[in-house]
C-alpha cells in the first residue's frame, strides 16, 4: 500500500501544508529542526494508533486546539480517503471515504506503517521497556482490536500501583485495603495473562522473519528470540495456565510488593532477549546479543527485527505497510547501508529523512521533498 497525498493542518510545526508522495522511495531533506521527522510521524498517525514518539497532545501545533490529517491511500485496487482529527482529551475522530468509523484504530485496517528511527536502532542494547513497546505495538499492528486489551492492561497496572502506594504500612489494620488489593490482583492476572499470551504468539510469528533478515546481512550466524519472564513458565502459551502462574507469583511476591509499594511481577517486567549464534560456530550456543554482540551487530539485529516486523505485517495483511526511516542511514556503515538500501528497494513505499542526502548512496529515489521551517516543497 502507499500514501498518495498527505495534507496536514496544525500538526506539529505545520500550519497548513500538503504534499504528494510517490511509489518507491521518497526522500525528505532539510536542515535539522525543520520538521522532517514530523512528516514521517504524520504518515504513521494515519493508522489511527497514535505516534511512535509521544502522546497525542504533542502532535497539535501549539496554540491550536486540534490537528487534522487528510490522505489518499492506495491499497491494491482500492483508493481510500482517510481523514483523522486529533483532539487531545476529547477523543480522536476518523473518517474512511467520508464515513465516520467507530474508532480511529479502524484506520489501521487500511493504512499501516513501520517506523524506524534512532531509538529503534538501539532496540537491542536499549531498555527492556523499548523492546516491550516494540512487541506490544506489533501485537496491535497485527490485530488492531487488541489495542483495547493493551489499554485495559495499562489502566489496571496503574490502578494497582496507586493502591499499593496508598496501602497502610501497619499489618492487619486494613482489611478493606487487602480485600481491594485482591480484586486488583484478579484483574491483573486475567488481563496480564491475555497480554502475555498475545505477546508470545506474536514473538513466535516474528522470529523466523527476523532470523531470515539477519542471515541475509550477517552472511551466516543465526538470530533467535526468546521471551524472558520471571513468572511465566517457559513455552507456556495457554491463557488459563499463564493466569494461574501469575496468581502464584503474585502470592509469593506479596510481602515484597507491600514493602516496595509497586507491582513487582507481571508482563510489565518481562523482556525480549535477542540471541545470536555466531557464523563461525553454527553448532554453538546462542548467546545474549546485549552482552556478547558488538555495537554494529546489535544494530544489525535491530534492523533485522524491524524489517522482520515489516515482512510479517506484509504477509499477515497481504499489503506492505509504508516503511518510515528516520535518519537511519547516517548511523550505518557502508555495508549495512547497501543492505538496507536493497531491502528498501523491494518495498512498495518508503519515506525516509536525511540531513545529508548526498551521503545517502541509494538509487531509485522517486521523489524529493524539502522541508524548511514547516513548509513543504518538491525539490527534484
Amino acid at each position, binding site marked *: 500500500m502507499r500514501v498518495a497525498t498527505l495534507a496536514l493542518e496544525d500538526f506539529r510545526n505545520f500550519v497548513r501544508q500538503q504534499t504528494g508522495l510517490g511509489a518507491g522511495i521518497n526522500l525528505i531533506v532539510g536542515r535539522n529542526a525543520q520538521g522532517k521527522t514530523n512528516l514521517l510521524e504524520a504518515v504513521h498517525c494515519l493508522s489511527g494508533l497514535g505516534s511512535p514518539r509521544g502522546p497525542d497532545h504533542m502532535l497539535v501545533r501549539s496554540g491550536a486546539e486540534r490537528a487534522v490529517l487528510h490522505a489518499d491511500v492506495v491499497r491494491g485496487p482500492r483508493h481510500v480517503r482517510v481523514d483523522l482529527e486529533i483532539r487531545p482529551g476529547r477523543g480522536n475522530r476518523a473518517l474512511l471515504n467520508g464515513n465516520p468509523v467507530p474508532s480511529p484504530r*479502524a484506520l489501521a485496517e487500511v493504512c499501516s506503517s513501520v517506523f524506524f528511527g534512532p531509538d529503534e536502532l538501539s532496540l537491542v542494547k536499549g531498555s527492556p521497556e523499548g523492546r516491550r513497546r516494540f512487541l506490544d505495538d506489533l501485537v496491535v499492528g497485527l*490485530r488492531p482490536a487488541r489495542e*483495547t486489551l493493551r489499554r*485495559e492492561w495499562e489502566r489496571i497496572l496503574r*490502578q*494497582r500501583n496507586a493502591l499499593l502506594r*496508598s496501602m497502610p504500612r501497619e499489618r492487619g489494620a486494613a482489611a478493606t485495603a487487602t480485600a*481491594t488489593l485482591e*480484586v*486488583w490482583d484478579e484483574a491483573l492476572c486475567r488481563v496480564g495473562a491475555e497480554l502475555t499470551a498475545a505477546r508470545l504468539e506474536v514473538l513466535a510469528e516474528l522470529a523466523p522473519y527476523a532470523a531470515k533478515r539477519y542471515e541475509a546481512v550477517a552472511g551466516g550466524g543465526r538470530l533467535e528470540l526468546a521471551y524472558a519472564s520471571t513468572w511465566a513458565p517457559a513455552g507456556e502459551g495457554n491463557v488459563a495456565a499463564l493466569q494461574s502462574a501469575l496468581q502464584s507469583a503474585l502470592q509469593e511476591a506479596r510481602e515484597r510488593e507491600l514493602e516496595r509499594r509497586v507491582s513487582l511481577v507481571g508482563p510489565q517486567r518481562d523482556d525480549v532477549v535477542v540471541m545470536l549464534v555466531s557464523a563461525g560456530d553454527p553448532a554453538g550456543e546462542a548467546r545474549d546479543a546485549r552482552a556478547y554482540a558488538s555495537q554494529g551487530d546489535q544494530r544489525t539485529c535491530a534492523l533485522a527485527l524491524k524489517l522482520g516486523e515489516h515482512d510479517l505485517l506484509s504477509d499477515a495483511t497481504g499489503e506492505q505497510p509504508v516503511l518510515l526511516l528516520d535518519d537511519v542511514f547516517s548511523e550505518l556503515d557502508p555495508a549495512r547501508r547497501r543492505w538496507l538500501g536493497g531491502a528498501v528497494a523491494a518495498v512498495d513505499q518508503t519515506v525516509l529523512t536525511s540531513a545529508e542526502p548526498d551521503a545517502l548512496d541509494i538509487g531509485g529515489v522517486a521523489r524529493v521533498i524539502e522541508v524548511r521551517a514547516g513548509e513543504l516543497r518538491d525539490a527534484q
Partner: protein
Amino acid sequence: MFAGPLQDLIDELSKLPGIGPKSAQRVAFHLLKAPADDAAALARAIVEVKDKVRLCRTCFNVSDQELCEYCRDPRRDATVICAVQEPPDIVAIERTREYRGLYHVLQGAISPIEGVGPDDLRISELLSRLRPTAEDRPPVEEVIVATSPNVEGDATALYLARLLQPLGVKITRLASGLPVGGDLEYADEVTLGRALVGRRSLSA
C-alpha cells in the same frame, strides 16, 4: 482578563466539568446579554438545587424528600436491588422500562488513582439493607451489580461479589456484549471475547 464580576463568572464556569476557558467565556457573554429574569432564574435554580436536593436516606439517589421516588413507591419489587455508580445510571436503566426493583447508588467506583476505596463508597449502607430487620419488609433476594463495564467498574463489581457472597443473596452482573443493531465485524476483541464467555443457549 475582563473586569471584576465578568471574570469571576468566567472563572466559576470554567470550574464546571466539560467547560474549558473558551466555552466559559461564551456562556458568560450569553448570560450578560440574556434578559435579567433568565439570569435570575438560573441563579435561583443553582441555589435551590443545593438547598433542596439531597440524597435518599436508603438508596442515596438524588431526591427532594427523605426517600427518593423509587424507595417511596410501594409497587416496586423490594426483593431486588440494582447497584449503580451514579444517579444518572438510574435514569438510563429506567428508560428501558425492564426493571421494577429498587436501586442503590454507590456514589462512585473503586479507583485507587483517584484515591477512592471501598470505604468511600456507599457499600456498608448496601450491606445493611441486605440484613434481615424487624421492619415489615421482604428480604432482598438478588443484587444486580450494574457498575460500568470498565476497569474500575469491574473491580467494584468483583469487590461487591466477594463481600456479598457469604450473605446468601443472589448476585448478578449486567451482561457485557455486542451492541444491538451493530455489526459483528466492528466489535472489538475484548467486547467480543466477553460476549463469547457470556453466551446463552438457544436450544430449549
